[in-house]
């Protein structure tokens, strides 16, 4: 069912508003050799990305979190030796611990040890160097669509709920479970008809899932991007 919805979303593509929102996203690029990547940055700008922040190293994880980036493109070596024994991997772990919904794209070498691979799997996407602006641009779109397109966000939340099912059954009250089921059903229907009221429904889902604690944080964080003051 979800696969079919995904296929429909791919066929539909992005609306101009979503595309603009993706291109205007606040993206931080961290690489110890950032001075060598001027052409890559230029290439990304040529692809339409207008809000790029370049950093040679990470001074503090809190600083990154406070900046409220939509996406962080992170190299894993030589970027955070002063603040973490695990360098970029340590930064990745901390970012994901504090904000699981923050999208992190790791750009690094081609092979890792088993321990490193396990830790790296916290990243949302990994791209091996060398990478071209066009490939990086495709990756950025792939990641940010969940934050900028309400339908992709809804699909992502439905997938996440599937993973959370055992906790939902165990920890939520009967009434909350029924409410959640109804909302899931409605979201699925909205995804079939591209109903724009979909965001309200997954925001309600996030309210319920908050009760699960940190394991539901991903759903909460995804929905937060669609709460309009």
């Amino acid at each position, binding site marked *: 069912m979800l696969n079919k919805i995904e296929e429909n979303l791919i066929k539909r593509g992005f609306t101009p508003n979503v595309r603009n929102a993706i291109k205007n996203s606040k993206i931080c690029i961290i690489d110890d050799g950032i001075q060598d990547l001027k052409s890559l940055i230029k290439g990304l700008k040529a692809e339409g990305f207008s809000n790029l922040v370049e950093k040679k190293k990470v001074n503090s994880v809190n600083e990154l979190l406070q900046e409220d980036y939509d996406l962080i493109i992170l190299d894993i070596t030589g970027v955070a030796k002063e603040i973490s024994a695990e360098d970029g991997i340590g930064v990745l772990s901390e970012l994901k611990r504090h904000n699981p919904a923050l999208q992190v794209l790791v750009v690094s070498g081609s092979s890792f040890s088993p321990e490193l691979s396990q830790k790296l799997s916290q990243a949302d996407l*990994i791209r091996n160097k060398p990478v*071209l602006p066009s490939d990086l641009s495709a990756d950025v779109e792939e990641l940010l669509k969940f934050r900028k397109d309400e339908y992709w966000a809804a699909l992502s939340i439905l997938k996440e709920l599937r993973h959370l099912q055992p906790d939902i059954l165990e920890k939520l009250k009967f009434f909350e479970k029924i409410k959640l089921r109804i909302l899931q059903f409605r979201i699925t229907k909205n995804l079939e008809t591209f109903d724009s009221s979909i965001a309200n429904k997954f925001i309600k889902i996030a309210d319920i899932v908050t009760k699960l604690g940190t394991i539901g944080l991903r759903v909460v964080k995804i929905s937060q991007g669609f709460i309009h003051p």
Partner: protein
Amino acid sequence: MIDLKGTKILFTAYAHYYSQFYNCGFYSDDLDIPNYLWISGIKPESCKLLDDNMKINQQCHKFYSNLDIGIKETICPLGVTIRYNRVKTASGTFTMMMQKEYNQEITKNVVSKLPRKTKKALKKKLHNGDIIFNITNINDDTIIDNFSNVVETVLAGRLSESMRAITHEMLTPIQGVINDIKLLKSQVDENKESLDTIKILEQNIGQISRLSKNISILLNPQLNITVQSARKVYIHSEIKNIWERYTSATEGKKIILDHKKNKGGLYIEAVPDQIGILFNILLENAIKYSFEGFDNKPTKIIVSYKDLKNFLEVTIETLGCLIEVFEYERVFELGYRGINSNERFRNGTGSGLYIAKNIVTSHGGEILVSSQKIEMENNAPLGINKFSVKLPYRFKNCSI
């Protein structure tokens, strides 16, 4: 982390420990290790007795420095049958040997030719402890095997850690150059000369990038691929792009690509750059080991696809040097060069297929080779060689 010198000292201590229990010895003609070992006496008692005899010592050095690579058995200048393993390490050649049994006749003959003084000393020692004939009975090669593996791993491992870091660091400037060239390409006008120069630059940096990645993969005994690295990879387009890189080589050898697009439109989920490296190795080998064609009859490299339900099978077929049946597994070993490959005339490191297998197995696939003997040309056995790569359509639990 300890440095290479520290590693050697550690290794010497390890060798000292071993020599208490076995009649073993260590030799290397191009490392500084033998100085440590030889002088500090890590060798069988029978060899120690002849330390002062220059003539025998020279014979022994010559004997050990001429041993073949690999695990073998031979008789040493003293008449003792030795089982040895001679390996190539990152810093040179190294031999570990164990005495297995002695040949009384040869030993007697050697001893009888010794100068009177040495013979007398030797006989005295022999009389006291009969040391020379106290040979360890070894039936198991694993001791030799394990010890050599330790040497290889420790010495190469120390280097590999630094090399891995350097290779990793190299990738950032490589990425910078690749992007600079791309930008430059969009800025130059239609000047053919400039575009040709940029094309050459592009090819060269691409080759440097691939070689760096090959080193990086080589230094990892096992590639650990995460689903986050997987993307859709269109194999047909990948092979087409790789082939274009080798235009000058293929035109020179009159080789053409017969690219059957029966299932090539399909994509698989894989790590794109690794799949690029895999097919680059296979196509480069196919070109390198194919025989030159003729203007009216060019040599064909046939690439075909087969849908195997959950797997896509890509077969690369060439007419080249015959691969014998017993080599079907060995060609994927590191450093192995085919016996019919005429390696003197073809540059190579013997690492390509090892890397290829590493990539394929990391993706949950399989790589196989078969070779059908067809005819003889200039005494070189020819064969139709088929490399079949089976790669899963879906990468583990990944859904893109």
